[in-house]
């Protein structure tokens, strides 16, 4: 299973390196969304809190994670789009590859791509929103766990739409309600990680992310095979 996972992850990453869709399309999309948020929520609105942060800076964690979520939807769609040509997924599964391994492989590739996107987006958010970083350890843990959660749960729900024309509209509808707790937890934890005066305790929320990721690790490995059966 692990060998199959590795093969799929490497394959998907090779496809990305050759086609550069994530780097050339999804990443710019994410940066654009950050800018749009800045336009929609003027940086000159009232300042809040004892630290005198602008409204935009105050809500920067939430905006960052919404941007990540929207970008991941595209990455997840792409993950299955590369398989629809010539019924690749059927061929892969019929060749005897372990469905759980294929699931982990696809999720792993999405994870790697999204971490890369988030590093750039994070830098962009830092520049555009001007948010400081109080606890880098918590921030790193939050980003890692939240992205794992998104990649695992997202891959499972994206597979429901695999090979279908309505994939692009169906997958967001299925995945976003499920990922709402991830958005919530990641935002809370990030607020604690960035702001020194945050009243929220971030590590419990990071633990919730870990639980969510583990849950979908298990569920995904079990459910992916039955979902992909084409009989």
């Amino acid at each position, binding site marked *: 299973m692990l060998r199959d996972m590795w093969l799929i992850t490497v394959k998907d990453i090779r496809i990305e390196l050759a086609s550069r869709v994530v780097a050339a399309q999804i990443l710019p999309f994410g940066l654009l969304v950050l800018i749009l948020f800045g336009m929609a929520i003027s940086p000159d609105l009232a300042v809040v809190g004892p630290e005198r942060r602008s409204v935009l800076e105050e809500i920067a964690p939430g905006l960052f994670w919404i941007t990540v979520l929207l970008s991941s939807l595209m990455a997840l769609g792409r993950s299955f789009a590369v398989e629809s040509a010539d019924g690749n997924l059927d061929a892969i599964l019929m060749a005897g590859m372990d469905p759980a391994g294929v699931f982990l492989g696809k999720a792993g590739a999405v994870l790697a791509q999204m971490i890369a996107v988030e590093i750039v987006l994070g830098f962009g958010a830092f520049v555009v929103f001007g948010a400081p970083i109080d606890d880098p350890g918590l921030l790193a843990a939050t980003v890692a766990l939240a992205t794992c959660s998104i990649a695992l749960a997202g891959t499972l729900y994206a597979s429901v739409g695999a090979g279908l024309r309505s994939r692009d509209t169906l997958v967001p509808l299925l995945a976003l*309600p499920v990922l709402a707790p991830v958005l919530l937890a990641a935002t809370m934890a990030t607020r604690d990680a960035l702001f020194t005066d945050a009243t929220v305790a971030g590590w419990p929320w990071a633990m919730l992310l870990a639980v969510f990721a583990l849950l979908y690790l298990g569920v995904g490995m079990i459910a992916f095979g039955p979902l992909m059966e084409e009989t």
Partner: protein
Amino acid sequence: MSESEPRSSNDAAKPKSTEIATEQTASIGSAHTGSRASRTIGIAALVAVGLLAAFGLWISPPEVSQADAARLMYVHLPSIATMYLMFFITLVGSIIYLRNGSRFWDLLAGAAAEIGVVFNGLTLFSGAIWGKPTWGAYWTWDPRVTSTTVMFVMYIGYLAVRRLELPPEARSRRAAVLGILSFLNVIVVHYSVKWWRGLHQGQTIGIDTKLDGLMLTSLMIGFVAFALTGAWLLMHRFRIEWLQSQIGEVGLDQALAERRAEAAGYNPSDSVGGLA
């Protein structure tokens, strides 16, 4: 019940229970989804709804703190119960379908989900209407309100999957997995939102547990009325699912028959009267 003697050799294949036979023959010729069973339940539902209106709107007294707005609880709470009941049926049906491929449970799961979505929408609406005079706002970030709204969208997604263009078995399987996961996801969403709002010491809306005798009676009538209505709707919706699956098969059968006839060298749509 003893089997009556066959009148002729053609009657050899008699069903075991004559009751079912009567039911089947009564509805076989009918071009609608009604039956004696559904009509009975439908009438019972109407009676119960009438009783509910009488008790809920008139006989029961206004509540102490909420006055007449509390009367909305007589439809709001039963809506919630019916909604959860339907989604639970979807959960059970999905599990059974995945285990043994039972078409009955697959169709029932799909039918129940649609009815659940309808009652989910009604729950949100009646809750908002109740919230305005009671708390002053149509919407709050109360855990239950938020998670019920997310649940609404989740099951709309489930219904979308049931309409995907896929071979029926593949479609049913994806829907079944989703039917199970959606129920579990609701629990996850509910607890994370509860934790989130708990931090803010927000209002957790409780329902006054001291219920006057008449109010309790009205509420019970409400549950019964909505359950009967839900059952009636489910019967019809299930039959619609069945008919849709049959239409697919009838089309397939016809196509196969036409192909076989062609292969035999005879096309039924050719030449009237058999002249070449």
